[in-house]
Structure formats: C-alpha cells, structure tokens
C-alpha cells in the first residue's frame, strides 16, 4: 500500500513526513528514512511525491480496490465458450 520509499535514493530530508496531512509517516525519526506506519490512511494526493527533491525516491502505489473501471472495444464481447 502507498507510499513506497526507495531507501537507497532517500536523502532523509523529512519533507514528506512534514507535509503529509494524514500523517501516514507517524513515528518517523528526524533525518532517518521515513517509516510508513499508516499506509491505509494515504489519500493519494501526491503531496509527498511533489515535495521530494529526488526523482524516484518516493512514489505511490494505488490500491487494487481503487482501480478505475473503463471500457475497451472488446469488453462487451461474449466470453469464449
């Protein structure tokens, strides 16, 4: 569940920890790689990704139940058999 941090790229600047309104990073220690204590409380507003100064150090994985439903040209075809 989101967010996900690459500890090799994280520079431990705490920006994501500071801005997250839901505080999914609660319990993180200053200048250490943030811990994701409450992933279920992420609302996917991308604030943490926006403020991160290192591309690829943090990203969001969208939970499966939130996947949107869309229609392709073959979705209405009867299933084989």
């Amino acid at each position, binding site marked *: 569940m989101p967010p996900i941090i690459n500890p090799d790229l994280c520079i431990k600047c705490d920006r994501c920890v500071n*801005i997250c309104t839901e505080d999914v990073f609660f319990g993180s220690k200053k200048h250490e790689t943030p811990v994701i204590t409450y992933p*279920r409380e*992420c609302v996917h*507003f991308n604030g943490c990704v*926006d403020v991160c100064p290192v591309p690829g150090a943090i990203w969001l994985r969208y939970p499966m139940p*939130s*996947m*949107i*439903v869309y229609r392709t040209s073959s979705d209405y075809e009867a299933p084989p058999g």
Partner: protein
Amino acid sequence: MEEQLIECDVLCVGGGIAGLMAAIRASELGANVVVAEKGNAHYSGCGRRGNDHFETWIPEVHGADKEKFIDELLKTAKGEILIGRDILRAQFGKAHEIVELWDEWGIPMRQKGKWEFAGHAFPGRMMTHIKYEGRFQKTVLVQQARKRGARIMNRIMVDELLRDGDRVIGAVGVHTREDKVFVFQAKAVILGTGKCSRLYQGLTPGMMFNDGHGGVQTGDGRAMAYRAGAELMNVEMPQRHIGPKYFAKFGQATWVGVLRDAEGKPVGPFVSEPDRRYGDIVMEVNKLAPEQYGERGRGPVYMDCTGISDEDAAYMRHWHIHEGNVSLVDHMDAEGIDPRKHPIEFSTYPLRGGGLIVANEKAETSLPGLYAAGDEAMGDISAAATFGWISGDTAATYARTVEHGDVEVTRPIIAALESRVDELRGRGNGPDWEEANIALQQVMTDYAGKVRNEARLLQGLAHLRRLRQKVDTEMMARNQHELGRCLEVHNLFDVGELTFHAALDRRESRGLHNRPDYPFKNPLLSQAHIVRMEGDRPVTDWRSY
C-alpha cells in the same frame, strides 16, 4: 501531559481555504491570529491539491447587476439549495474582489490575460465559473497568511470550544504527535474544519480514506459547535457526489465528455457531443443517474470522452492536474487508460454527512465570538474563499471590542478533555478508532442511509447509542496519532446521533432524505431545520431563511 496556553485575538480552527483566508483578512486588520491545523496547512482541506473552477460574478462580463447573476444561479444550478439570498449576495458581492486578489498573489485566475468561463454550465445560459490554475493555491495562501503575521500551528487538533456565559472565549485541543494539550485564549474563534467524511460507508467499505475530500474531514467543527451550544441546520440532509468508479476523485466539470449509457445514448438532455465549454451538467442536475441506471438494469454509465481532439485531451489533462487529480492522471497513465479511446465508468458516490453550522452573511454563528466559514457553513471553493475573508473581517472587528475571557472558568471542559485523553491512551485493550468508525459507518448506512423510516431510525439510534457507550468506555489509542483519530470518531458519533434525531423530525421526503413513511415533499418545511443542544439533549426547530 504538558499544557500550553496560547493567547491570540482570532483563532482559526482548520487551515483550509476558509481558515487561511480568514487568517489573511484578520491579520490585515491588525489582529493577532493563530491558525490551528490538525494536518499541515500546505496540504490540508478540500483545496489541498487544487481546484480549477471558481464561481463568480464578474461585473465587466456579466453586467453591473449582480442580482441577475444570482437569479440565474437560483433558476439553474442552485435552485434546490437551501441558502438564503442574503448569503448569495454577500458571496458574490465579494467573490470578484477575491479573484483579483488571488490573481495578484500568484494563483493564476486569468488565462492568457483573460477570464475563461467553462464547465458547470448549461449550454445557452449564463456562464458562472471561471477556470483557474489552483494547484498551488494552498502554498500561496499559507505564504500570504504568514506574510501578514499569522502564526500557523500544524498538527494541533482543536476539539472543544471554551465558553464563558454565551460567549466563546477560546478552544482546547491536542497535539497529534506529542503528548501536549493546547489551551487557546481567543477573543474570537472561526471554525473552518470542512465537510463530514467517514460517517457513512465509502466507495470501498473499510477503506475509509478512498474519499474525494481526503479522510480527515470528520465534522469536527460542527460537532464542537453543537457541544458548545451553537445551532446547526439540515444535519439530516446527506450529500452525494459523482465521479470515476472506485477511485473517489472529484472534478465532474473538468471532464470534456458526455455522460452516456451502455448503448452510447447521452444520459442527459444538455450535451450530445463533448464540448470543453460546458462539460456535462447532467451530473450536477442528477448525481444519482449512474445509480438509477444500475437499479433499472440500464448501466453501466460512462464518462465518454472518446473522439476528442488531442488538443482537448491535453486541455482536460492540464485542468485535472489543477483540480487536484494528479493521482487520477498518474493512475490512468500507469494502467494504459486513454480517455480518448476508453469510456470511464462513473458512479454515484456513497452518502456523506450533511448539515451546516448556522451562520449569517457576516459568518456570525448563534454564539457571540464564534464564526464559521467554508464547508462547515456554505460549501464550494468560491464560498470558502469569500466567507473565509468575511469571517476574518467580522471576527477581527469584534475582537477589537472585547477583552479576553478568563479561560480558567472553563477548567471543567479542559479537564474533561485531558481526562478523555488519559483514558484513551491508558487502555491496553478494546476497539481502536478504525473498528469503532467502521461500526458507526455500518449503522449509519443501514439505518439512516438511502431509505429511512421511523422504526428503522429509532432502532438505528438505539444501536448507535449502545456503540457510543462502548466507544466512551473501551476505545483505545496506541499513540497520539490514533488519539486524534479517536477524537474524530467521537465527533462523528455526535454528528451521527444528530442525523438520526433530525431525520426522525423531518417527516417528509426531500432530496436525499427519503422517507417512504412520509413520501411527499412538504413545501411548509422549505425552511432551515435547526438542531441545538438544550441541557444534554438535542432539540429541533424550523426557521425561515
């Protein structure tokens, strides 16, 4: 537990659009202002990641008579909204000035130097919403508030108002990371704490933060206002929204498309081909359309943008990002979903708590020293910005006329909160906030949900009270973060209980209040349905507005 006293002229509870605009205006008028925000004001509230539409009368566009603009709104989009004309006059008397201020501060309200009206529109009628690039609006407003000397205190959840006689003289709250209580001695308090999510089951039951407003707008303001004796109105009238199925994101008017059924027929009569000027306002006329189509065996319903030009697709993407839908755009990119090729299924979103804190055109509530703005009082970004400003003006002016109250006379309220905190933190077993919240959502959805009748409402209320007793005696918080969530759950239980009371008292069917035991709309009840506390019980009343 450490207790800290903070003195200020004006306390803004909540650092959303309304709270920050209130802070800006009150500071300009010379007030010593504190904003207490339970998250981080840079990324809190409904406007946290942006908006792209702002409803406003612009004299050089609409003509000098704003009454005609209001007439048009009442004839069309706002026709069913229970708002007095004096409120709309106050909003649109100020909104065009706010728009100019925002533009000056660095929130782009004009596009290439001009007003661009689009979306939320009936073809052939007056256009009422300008497009604006709001992605970084919160950052701009935080800077503007600080520039004027307002002190923004993040991670403080205000939980109770302090009263001396009728007058509100401050508030008390907790830090959501550290073991601290904050007592605010304030001459005026402005509530701008947003909507009421997490009261009903959401799109994915149990995943409470899949919510277009985020998951932390839990009716805190209306709950504490009620406990302090202020009047609320229309608490039983729930709200619903519409958007992409399963990923709760707003921005109905940002889509350049047509809402169509499975056979490709437009759901509404307003547009038959995608048109960036209008969007498809059928979603605002009837947010229940996808649900009704489903119930009648005619679903699914899609937002169909297929065939739009690359230019229109880029336009829509740009505005989704400013509307706060970066994650939606990212998700579609990652899954290979292209709105030019793939119709996106839309659904009616589940119920959300309703009601407002009663506030007049000056943002004054029924208690001296207490003001309300934003979604707690009016709703939408234009109203939040405008009444935020108005509340700051009124509160700062009032603060000049009074001395500080003595918060020590409110010691029992402060002590009660401290004792509740100790209990929640001290328990080692029992339901956590999440379990309690899910139980509440279950009873709200099943007994005060889409269909209501007297027996069901009475049974649900009885069950809610039993749950409440467990919450009061058994709920536990493992740390300060969970403590904040527990206090939110307390607030939600208060709003839930009031919803049952008010729903029982509204003996008619209207809007989303569906009572088959009173199936008709009663025109005599086209009034504000007031609820307030007398003793320790809610009493209801009807009042014209």
